[in-house]
């Protein structure tokens, strides 16, 4: 029987009332007295030397209040990379300074080298155009292709980095010889070269930032589209502008999606704060959609060679990869972790593979920075593994389902230490595979294939058995791996005198539904009504601390902190109840919202205890502080490991190459599920983005570094009719063993597991249709590419 409230209930998303009725408050909705308008002046060349910027004409234009250039910020700090990665030879990565505004050189189309602040938006735009006309940039040859970037030591994105390589990382370097030996003696080796296509995150709400400065107090306020206001505060305060943290408030109000792109601090945030201080007036910058294409951190962009050694009957013996990962022109905050510790450590997949070695070279190019995007490294790993497993099956004439079953870890093998440094705590990969086979009606495929054939369509079926490491992340472990921050989270549970509750969470909701789910959890634990709980997030002046929302961490990490805080509330409540009920604390039990003396009918309600805490007339004041508010920090002991099996069926039109998704079946293990409706929605969204990557989305720079897909006219986003009605199941749950909720996280799963299922299905369709020469098609598997593959 499904529950109708608390943990496990499909409570309706309370935040949707304001979103759907137009009452959300996004950064752009905030109008402040005396506000001014900032416009960035962006490079229209990919690589160039700034020879001169003459600001005089622009500064004198009507309404112009200030003009900033890179020169104005040359003495403040750079926007840092959050992880220090060492190369195989032990040398640290190369870290060029990422300035607030480009200084000396521009390094990608869209690189902002100046900013105008004016009384109106159009005045700022006019002046920006003037300034661009008055700027002399000597165009230099663009460095776009990664292989050429590495090969050509003379042409440099950053003058001090000769081969454009940030680092050359081996994981695990000590295992390399053993892996190479395993390949030498392997009965079969499958090799696949592939591209993991670059994606533009395209959150529904473009980035926006408003800076304020109080000349009376010296306090700064930044309202910005952020997934993690505390992290942004830390970066702006400690690294870039040198503002004391306690003089800077960062507010991320309603935020319309992020998918990773709003984790990071961007230069515009520093510009609006510096401008607000200079002018003593609020300064707002709202990105146009075309600016988002040029300046948001992009995702993926790997070129990989993966090899898989196996027996002739499909037992995987070793995996070896070489990847070039694009970081773009500058290191964005998580850019060095994404292709390494979020990618290389997943390269064993859900399989028992004795030998794995991963090599990643990250490469600077004259393109927008690349960083974590929904899945972040794990989709790249999963795509490589699941494509090469499928190719191995074809080469050896083996069944894709049986080969996976043969290699999947079994439940008795947990906890399992992989050869790439992770410890999987629990799972049942056979169960999700069996569930997907059942729900996807694999047995009925042949009749569906025949029906498609009768319409002239080629039908294929693709499988992906995927795993991810999320719930990011245990601080002690990531510290060893190079992280420059801790990745715990925090929550405060404040019980008000009248018994209702405010919960301040470090996790930030930008569409996920935290306000609903977190309330469900607290309500369930305290035995109170969900409607009596308010979730507060996104404001550094209100919440204790937080590392934000990304890496499917909100529930597993912040939800655990919140659970710990609730436990402290209950523990204190027991002390109060013991006093009021004249019993010993050990005899007090808390159940269904009541504190009672075990074995008696003596009890106090939660509300009575809360009231007593704030009106402490009958209260143990000599031993207990009044009030009922607790804060907890939680640092996870391990990553969590959601896993699952996805089956995709496609129909291919052989005359046009068009691929239609006929069905998509997901059997996921997310551990304990708090709100099944929201989990299903997360899977739908994730798989939709995965289908987008697999079939539609691509970011293309030409050889001069001009971005050819800079609008929705050429960048193909998935739409409703591109995706099927999904079959989603999460009943095969093995609860996480190390967090109090037993939750693993579900936000990225769909985007991680789905792309290889789609591509495997297309290749299967072509093979079944007789086009057996097609071994691989790079994403996006567009109609033109499929047609070319068939006719190639």
């Amino acid at each position, binding site marked *: 029987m499904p529950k109708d409230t608390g943990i496990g209930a499909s409570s309706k998303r309370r935040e949707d009332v304001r979103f759907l009725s137009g009452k959300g408050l996004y950064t752009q909705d905030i109008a402040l007295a005396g506000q001014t308008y900032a416009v960035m002046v962006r490079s229209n060349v990919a690589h160039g030397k700034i020879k001169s910027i003459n600001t005089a004409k622009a500064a004198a234009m009507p309404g112009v209040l200030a003009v900033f250039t890179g020169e104005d910020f040359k003495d403040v700090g750079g926007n840092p990379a959050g992880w220090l990665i060492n190369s195989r030879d032990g040398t640290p990565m190369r870290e060029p300074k990422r300035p607030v505004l480009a200084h000396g050189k521009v390094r990608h189309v869209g690189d902002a080298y100046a900013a105008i602040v004016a009384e109106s938006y*159009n005045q700022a*735009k006019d002046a920006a*155009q003037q300034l661009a006309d008055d700027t002399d940039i000597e165009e230099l040859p663009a460095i776009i292709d990664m292989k050429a970037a590495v090969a050509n030591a003379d042409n440099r994105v950053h003058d001090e980095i000769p081969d454009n390589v940030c680092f050359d990382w081996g994981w695990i370097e000590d295992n390399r010889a053993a892996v190479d030996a395993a390949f030498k003696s392997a009965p079969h080796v499958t090799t696949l070269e592939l591209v993991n296509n670059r994606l533009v995150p395209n959150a529904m709400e473009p980035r926006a930032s408003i800076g304020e400065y109080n000349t009376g107090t010296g306090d700064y306020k930044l309202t910005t589209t952020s997934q993690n206001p505390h992290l942004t505060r830390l970066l702006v305060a400690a690294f870039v502008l040198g503002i004391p943290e306690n003089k800077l408030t960062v507010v991320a109000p309603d935020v319309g999606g992020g998918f990773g792109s709003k984790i990071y601090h961007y230069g515009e945030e520093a510009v609006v704060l510096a401008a607000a201080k200079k002018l003593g007036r609020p300064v707002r910058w709202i990105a146009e959609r*075309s600016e988002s294409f040029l300046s948001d951190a992009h995702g993926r962009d790997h070129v990989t060679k993966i090899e898989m050694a196996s027996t002739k009957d499909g037992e995987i013996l070793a995996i070896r990869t070489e990847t070039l990962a694009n970081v773009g022109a500058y290191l964005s905050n998580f850019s060095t972790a994404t292709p390494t510790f979020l990618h290389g450590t997943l390269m064993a997949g859900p399989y028992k593979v004795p030998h794995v070695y991963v090599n990643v070279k990250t490469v600077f190019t004259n393109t927008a920075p690349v960083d974590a995007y929904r899945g972040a490294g794990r989709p790249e790993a999963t795509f490589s593994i699941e494509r090469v497993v499928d190719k191995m099956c074809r080469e050896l004439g083996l069944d894709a389902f049986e080969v996976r079953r043969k290699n999947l870890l079994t439940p008795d093998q947990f906890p399992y230490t992989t050869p790439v440094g992770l410890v999987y705590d629990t799972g049942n990969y056979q169960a999700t595979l069996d569930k997907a086979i059942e729900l996807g009606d694999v047995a009925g495929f042949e009749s569906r294939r025949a029906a498609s054939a009768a319409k002239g369509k080629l039908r294929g079926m693709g499988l992906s058995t995927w795993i991810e490491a999320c719930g990011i992340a245990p601080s002690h472990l990531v510290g060893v791996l190079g992280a420059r921050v801790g990745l715990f989270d925090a929550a405060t549970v404040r019980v008000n005198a009248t018994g209702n509750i405010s919960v301040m969470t470090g996790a930030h909701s930008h569409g996920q539904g935290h306000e609903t789910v977190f309330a469900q959890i607290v309500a369930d634990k305290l035995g109170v009504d969900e409607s009596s709980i308010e979730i507060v997030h996104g404001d550094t002046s209100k919440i204790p601390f937080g590392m934000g929302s990304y890496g499917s961490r909100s529930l597993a990490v912040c939800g655990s902190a919140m659970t710990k805080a609730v436990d402290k509330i209950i523990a204190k409540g027991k002390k109060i109840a013991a006093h009021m009920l004249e019993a010993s604390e050990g005899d007090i039990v808390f159940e269904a919202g009541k504190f009672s003396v075990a074995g008696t009918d003596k009890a106090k309600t939660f509300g009575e205890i809360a009231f007593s805490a704030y009106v402490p007339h009958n209260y143990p004041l000599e031993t207990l502080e009044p009030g009922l508010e607790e804060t907890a920090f939680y640092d996870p002991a391990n990553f969590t490991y959601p896993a699952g099996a996805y089956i995709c069926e496609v129909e291919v039109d052989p*005359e*046009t*190459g*068009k691929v239609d998704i006929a069905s998509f079946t997901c059997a996921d293990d997310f551990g304990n599920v708090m709100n099944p409706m929201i989990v299903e929605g997360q899977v739908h969204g994730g798989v939709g983005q995965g289908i987008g990557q697999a*079939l*539609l989305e*691509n970011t*293309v720079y030409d050889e001069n570094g001009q971005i*050819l*897909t800079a609008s*929705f*006219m*050429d*960048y*193909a*986003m998935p739409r409703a009719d591109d995706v099927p009605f999904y079959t989603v199941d999460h009943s095969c749950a093995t609860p996480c063993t190390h967090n109090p909720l037993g939750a693993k996280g579900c936000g990225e799963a769909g985007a991680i597991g789905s792309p290889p299922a789609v591509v495997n299905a297309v290749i299967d369709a072509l093979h079944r249709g007789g086009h057996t020469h097609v071994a691989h098609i790079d994403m*996006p598997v*567009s*109609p*033109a590419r499929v*047609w*070319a593959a068939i*006719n190639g």
Partner: protein
Amino acid sequence: MFNFDFVKPSSIADAVAAMAQTGAQALSGGQTLTPTMKQRLASPSVLVSLTGIAEMKGVCLGADGLSIGGATTHATVAAEAGAYYPALADLAANIGDPMVRNRGTIGGSVANNDPAACYPSAVLASGATVVTNKRKIAADDYFVGMFSTALDEGEFITGVTFPVPEKAAYVKFNQPASRFALTGVFVAKYASGVRVAVTGASNNGVFRWAEAEAALSANFSASAVEGLTVSAADLITDLHGTAAYRANLVKVLTKRAVAGAK
């Protein structure tokens, strides 16, 4: 966007007068012009809206065929032309999305002559007549090249008259991002012969596929074009498809249009 003056005349005569002003630009549905202005790539000083002119709106069957006012939206054509010219209504019903169809107009689309727009293929395949504030222009004389037409400065389309065919169909293959026609083929069968117009494919804009017209005029069946080949020489290569791919689409879509003609 730069500042501009806006006028919305209620008669063709007033519109002609307004268009005589320096820097005047006709505005119909604005589906191309507005984004271009927002990107500061166009800066007309006067926008002359044509959508307030009653005589330029509506769908009407007359002696010369089906006349559609220049300011008639795609949604109106989709809703009202079906009884007379189903293929044309079907084309209109599949342009863009509901917002585009409720703003965009036939006159705007035909005047802009985007090489990937749908309407030019219907106009050309139907041998339609483009009616302007000055004259009548036969379709074969109207389309000059990509974004280029026979319209003079200040001249605007008041309507388009389509001879109604015995059978016709439009088949479009969507460009995945914009959902304009990556290639679209309009086939129309008249007593006098078959006309085939292709949009989306050529560097020179919409064009007639003469070989297919001859073959289909002799034998109106998909098999009639089976043996033909389409030259990729003048076809577009871009992110979404090569010239060879488009050449393939021209043939595949022509066959499908013939098979689906009604």
